[in-house]
């Protein structure tokens, strides 16, 4: 799992949660909240979909690590690699 692949997995999840958002031009280094209309319910869903689809656990204290695509990749890639 590379960081690029990880970013893509997160985008896949967001596109299922919020199909009404245009994800074609999401900037990886900008907070998702600042470029998309995602609320706390949507972020909870990202966490839960990560667990459901990939068996990845994100404890509540780490939710801020999911702020942007880049921070998602930094935080999640080692978790994916640890599972592989």
């Amino acid at each position, binding site marked *: 799992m590379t960081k690029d692949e990880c970013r893509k997995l997160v985008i896949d999840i967001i596109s299922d949660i*919020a199909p*009404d958002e245009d994800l074609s031009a999401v900037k990886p280094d900008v907070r998702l909240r600042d470029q998309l209309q995602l*609320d706390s*319910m949507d972020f*909870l869903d990202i*966490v*839960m979909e990560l667990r*459901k689809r990939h068996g990845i656990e994100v404890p*509540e204290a780490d939710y801020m690590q999911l702020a942007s695509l880049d921070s998602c990749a930094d935080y999640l890639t080692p978790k994916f690699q640890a599972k592989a």
Partner: protein
Amino acid sequence: MKDSPYDVAIIGAGMSGLAAGIRLAHFGKKVCIFERHNAPGGLNSFYSIAGRKFDVGLHAMTNYVPPGVKGTPLVKLLRQLRIDRDEFALCPQKRSRVAFRDCDLKFTNDFTVLDAEVTTKFPAQADGWRSLVQLVKTYDDVALDAKPVSAREVVGRHLTDPLLTDMIFCPVMYYGSAQERDMEFGQFVIMFKALFLEGFARPLDGVRVIIRVLLEKYRQAGGERRMKCGVKKIIEREGRAAALQLDDGSEITANHVISSIGYPETMRACEPAHTMEADANLGALSFCETISVFKQAPATWGWGDDTIIFFNDSERFDYSRATELVDPRSGVICFPNNFDYAGTGELPEGLFRVTCLANHDRWSALAEPDYRAAKGNWLGEMQRSARRFLPAVDDAVLSANLATTDMFTPRTVRKFTGHLNGAIYGAPRKVKDGRTHLSNLYLCGTDQGFLGIIGAMLSGISMANYHILQKSAG
């Protein structure tokens, strides 16, 4: 006999129970919904007589926003349940009205229409109106820990004209208030947004489209559903709902129980029963609704412009339990034909629905022949009252076109929904955080307090998230 334990048992397959079930099943919980009736939908359901399908509950789905508008309850709901908005096939209203004796306020799904009506017809109230709208827009109406405040009191700080105040309260109360004469301000905000800032829509085929989508999502997510299988008792041990006794006498267990059947109804189902708590928060408001089916669309004789009309002819709008069988002074007219079905088809027949406040105890005290006679009598009375607010039409035109009529009373509501007193909007005091005296028993739906059909679904979603999914996600 004991079935294998569920993660979650949900009581009631209405909008809120189905929505909670979809969320929980989607995230891998072993869920079962128990429904006493053979039809899902609860307060928003449908029935067939002689091949005709009738909707109950749903006049119009509130909270409608066009595609592209985000952050509103409809969009949250679609996202949370992974529903594509095309699946609901919503068609917007044409126009609605609040019609009082000497004044009409028109409104559409475009808020500027109502805004202009109010500021033109009540120029002295314009500043107060604007500040009220501003407050509504910024108010956190879904906070689960909000303290109750009187809407009459808050609105009174902005609007001083009693006619305008009543005209605003009339639709808001008719579409969701379980409280007589006043309502909690948070509830007022939810309804004001749902009706005026957002708007009305419906699928061409009515509420069954929504129910069908929910059932299918629930099935795909792997949820289990047991129809004609109500929960008779919630058996309490050591502060927990330890088991559910079903109508057939069998028992099941679940780690969590979500009840959508209402606060007093849930308290009474507990074993031991919490009758005092139940009786201290019983709804008193119920309704009668008449429906006339015509061979042609109402537009044929000039009733084609209005989708919904909230009417009243009393000096002050009086939203309280009817003292007679029915209080025909105020009510709601709905023309399901008058939505903008552009391109998707038209309803096969004309429909004219009238809803008025009614007295549950009086209807329930009637012996069968008197009950039938009263229905016949009030069907005519309610329609006569409503027609005062519609363009005049000769009786002969209507009777020549009439295919059939039907009517429900508070007794019908109680029988099919289990709501005590036939209280459609449930208990006057809502339980926003859904908690009960039992640590693993939560409420959702009407008595949790998110109103309307979108609100009901969001209630199921919120309670499933808050009490179950968030806890297991952290």
